[in-house]
């Protein structure tokens, strides 16, 4: 194995997903290296969420292969999923649990050993700024805090790959900044993939960006590379996602 292969945490090849006649995702490949934050951009209905659902094992692709840390997701789903943290578009929270109960449940669900959980719970709460809310009921907390609990749930088992589906939707500017800081911090040691349609968010947290449109990847470029070319992400985005719409 070459050095490059070892650093590849997520490798999805030629993914396809059809809903009846409609190709939601058509031949998409995604590669994610260690320490990379990948932004998946695209207009609504471009297939971002479908792609993410396939990568997290919630939806079986019609064709293609997915490898997480070299483990095939389709053949060994249990082993592959253990290396993965996932925050869906709507955070999967039980409103009648307290924050501690919920995070402990998430840790057990990801098969963490019992004696590691108290330590992991503390680190995870500290990271997500939930230290003083451990005993509160999730249902009584604000949307920003709930979003942070969602992220906490995705990182408590210390996964190598973290996948976040629109993590800052519906948050106020302060909360957005906090979440972005958290993502940057997490991205130093792990690989993160986040989907969004906020261009500013990609520029501020991501190291690489892929733009999706109508089920296909229309651009794959590092943020630094874009800056070097002097290209403005907004112009690129508009050009790529509106051009083909006019063709129809």
């Amino acid at each position, binding site marked *: 194995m070459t050095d490059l292969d070892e650093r590849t945490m997520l490798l999805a090849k030629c993914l396809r997903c059809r809903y009846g006649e409609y190709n939601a995702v058509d031949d998409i490949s995604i590669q994610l290296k260690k320490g990379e934050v990948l932004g998946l951009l695209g207009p609504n209905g471009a297939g971002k969420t479908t792609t993410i659902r396939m990568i997290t094992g919630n939806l079986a692709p019609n064709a293609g292969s997915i490898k997480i840390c070299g483990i095939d997701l389709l053949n060994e*789903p249990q082993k592959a999923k253990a290396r993965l943290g*996932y925050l*869906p578009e709507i955070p999967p929270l039980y409103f*009648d649990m307290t924050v501690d109960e919920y995070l402990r449940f*998430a840790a057990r*669900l990801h098969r963490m050993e019992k004696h590691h959980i108290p330590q992991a719970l503390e680190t995870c709460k500290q990271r997500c700024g939930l230290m003083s809310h451990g005993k509160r009921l999730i249902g009584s907390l604000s949307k920003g805090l709930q979003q942070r609990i969602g992220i906490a749930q995705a990182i408590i088992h210390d996964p190598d790959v973290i996948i976040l589906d629109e993590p800052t939707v519906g948050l106020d500017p302060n909360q957005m900044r906090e979440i972005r800081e958290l993502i940057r911090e997490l991205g130093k040691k792990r690989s993160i993939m986040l989907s969004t349609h906020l261009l500013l968010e990609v520029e501020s947290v991501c190291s690489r960006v892929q733009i999706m449109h109508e089920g296909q990847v229309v651009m794959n470029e590092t943020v630094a590379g874009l800056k070097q070319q002097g290209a403005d992400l907004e112009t690129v985005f508009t050009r790529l996602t509106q051009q083909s719409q006019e063709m129809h």
Partner: protein
Amino acid sequence: MLFASPLAWILLALIHMLLAWFFLGRLDAFLQIQPQLVQIENPPGFTETIVTPVFAMAAVLLLVLIPLLTMRQFAEERKNHTLTLLLSAPVTATEIVLGKFLALIIFFLGIIGLIVGMCLSLTAGGELDYGLVLSGALGLFLLVCCFVALGLYISSLTAQPALAAIGVLGVLLGFWITDMVTDDHQGWVHFVSIFKQFELLNNGLIDTFSGAYFFLFTLFFIVLTVRHLDGERLHG
């Protein structure tokens, strides 16, 4: 988690209050007819006149209670979008379904335990027929297994907890009515009626056929639930 919510406690209190009332009613009736019973040869003991009807009543109450608890299991998880959490975790669909099944069974074992305990209080005034009590409790337990498995399956079909509850209640009431329209020990309907199988056990007749029936019924719906969850992942 079930015990952290008031729902479980309220249900436990309610079912026990109703059964205790029924139990006292039966006890009262027994005491009234006792003088006449003594004159009959080989009279029915108080296990037959009190415990068996209490168990039969418990079966009917469970019929109403079980849909209330099973409806939440998958339908509510789906409605609150928490099912994704379970499906993306490193657990198989079988483990999810069996986990939920066992959790409910343990809860209902508690209810059955309380009912049996209430009947055991009769030992203060005489000797119980323990075989009959055990057979009836076994019947209740197997009946609960079937109801819960069916409830989980119907709950896995929908995202509306109320719909899931009504669905299970409808099917269970269907079974009950099937049982009422069939004459004793006659025809094929007798063989497919789940309540008739329970009645046999409740009357102290432990039959391999009943055991197989309950086991296959439970297994069938558990397998269907697992298949449904897996199928959803495969076909979107």
